[in-house]
């Protein structure tokens, strides 16, 4: 197999899948870091975001990529609403209650998607798109846009967290919540910002998976395990770790078909999760101990 074929058939799909996982894993790691709970509704929130984008496409007749930012805003509002309605209520109780509540929210979101849009697979646009060639590398426009969007999202988020006052406050809250409060950081504002970002990221990851495959009510649920594996692999609470973890999990999944039957592809994330928890529970970039 020529190098270029290897790149086109394994590396590009691995990076594509990995960057979609990365965007989802960033949200998981941020919720873990700041609110200290595992957000099980993350995948189904991504499904919801993808279907909201479908609705925007259907209602306004815009292209899917134009619908994406609108869907990100709407899903962000939804995420803040879910936090206010369900999680906020449990904030002072043990974290496991919120984890269970998020599982309930996951089921509610999925059922809502099934009620509104039905259970059959859907797509944003019909028809076959031929890939373009860039120095021998085959990329469809939607794949190119996916890569570009992920880069924009990661860079924008990094700048926000590193350079802005409230971004630093979010990092401080993740680092040492008691000291952040002693410094006068308003918990509620951080939580509001967190869910805004998480909702937008969910919509982006769901949309990007859907545009590269198809929309199904279960798509987000299947994203959950690789996204958690990516977040824990990178180190809980570490945004850059989640990106790294996402890319690794995506790449390993795609490469696994070289040595294992393709049906086991989905199990690789689980294997990575088990291995990292056994060998290096703090993750590659020294995250929090769970």
């Amino acid at each position, binding site marked *: 197999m020529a190098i270029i074929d290897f790149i086109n058939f394994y590396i590009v799909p691995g990076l594509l899948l990995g960057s979609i996982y990365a965007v989802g894993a960033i949200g998981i790691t941020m919720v873990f870091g700041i609110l200290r709970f595992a957000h099980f509704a993350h995948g189904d929130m991504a499904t919801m975001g993808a279907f909201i984008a479908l609705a925007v496409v259907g209602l306004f007749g815009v292209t899917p990529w134009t619908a994406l930012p609108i869907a990100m805003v709407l899903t962000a509002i939804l995420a803040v609403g879910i936090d206010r309605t369900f999680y906020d209520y449990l904030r002072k109780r043990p974290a496991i209650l919120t984890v269970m509540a998020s599982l309930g929210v996951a089921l509610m979101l999925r059922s809502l998607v099934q009620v509104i849009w039905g259970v059959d697979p859907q797509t944003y646009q019909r028809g076959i798109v031929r890939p373009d060639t860039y120095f021998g590398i085959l990329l469809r426009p939607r794949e190119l846009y996916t890569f570009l969007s992920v880069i924009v999202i990661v860079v924008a988020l990094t700048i926000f967290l590193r350079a802005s*006052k409230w971004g*630093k*406050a979010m*990092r*401080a809250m*993740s*680092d*040492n919540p*008691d*000291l*952040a*409060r*002693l*410094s*006068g*950081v308003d918990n509620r504002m951080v939580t509001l910002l967190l869910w805004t970002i998480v909702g937008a990221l969910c919509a982006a990851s769901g949309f990007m998976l859907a545009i590269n495959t198809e929309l199904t009510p279960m798509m987000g649920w299947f994203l959950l395990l690789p996204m958690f594996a990516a977040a824990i692999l990178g180190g809980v609470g570490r945004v850059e770790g989640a990106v790294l973890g996402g890319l690794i999990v995506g790449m390993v999944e795609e490469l696994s078909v070289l040595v294992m039957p393709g049906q086991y592809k989905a199990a690789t994330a689980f294997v990575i999760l088990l291995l990292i928890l056994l060998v290096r529970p703090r993750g590659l970039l020294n995250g929090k101990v769970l």
Partner: protein
Amino acid sequence: MSHSPMSVSPATADDFVLAMENVRGGYGDADILQGVTIKVAPREIVVIVGPNGAGKSTAMKAVFGLLIVRGGTVVFDGEDITGWAPNRIVKRGICYVPQVENVFREMTVHENFEMGAFLRKGDLTAAYDRVYQLFPDLKAKRKTPAGDLSGGQRQMVAMGRALMLDPKLLLLDEPTAGLSPKYMEQIFQITRDVRDTGVSIMLVEQHAKQALAFCDRGYVLATGANRHEGTGAALLADQEVAHMFLGG
């Protein structure tokens, strides 16, 4: 068990930056403090010592609103702040440096200072200049994550973070815990330097002998109540205090 008179301080009651009087309270239902009185004058370093379980740190937390106060009053800068929430007290001008977990480990030294000034608006140049002048060692490490520093330097970051809000009163909970004697001396010296910039300081210390030697005034607590008070030198000379701490 006699309370010595306040003859050692030249200040009258109104002149105190902080006056906690006869405070009782605890974290839950039980009172850990059984009536504690501690006063701090402007530009004064007051040290609280006492055996384990005496309520030293608890007394400090009572000032900062981290305790359920069931009796007595805490007056700061002429205003009764008893029962205020910590974030309100911070804005009023008291900053607190906890004993442990007192820095943002994953954030740089400079970002720690920035977080200290979170509530401040406007130009912070003077505030940064002040902390880097007090802690010149940290200037070269301003981009280093605080978690990578030595224990002594972390303590400096913690104090610097608290000073960014320009407090009138700084509360230090065992700032020398776990530090080598060399660093302990350094922290005491820095505490004096901070005082000289116009801040009153109340600190809790495990190293009673060294702390009493360096402070302006000291309070000895035992089982949640005042036991002795006086200048550091007077307390060091006191037979009973010596017996309690100094193995005399």
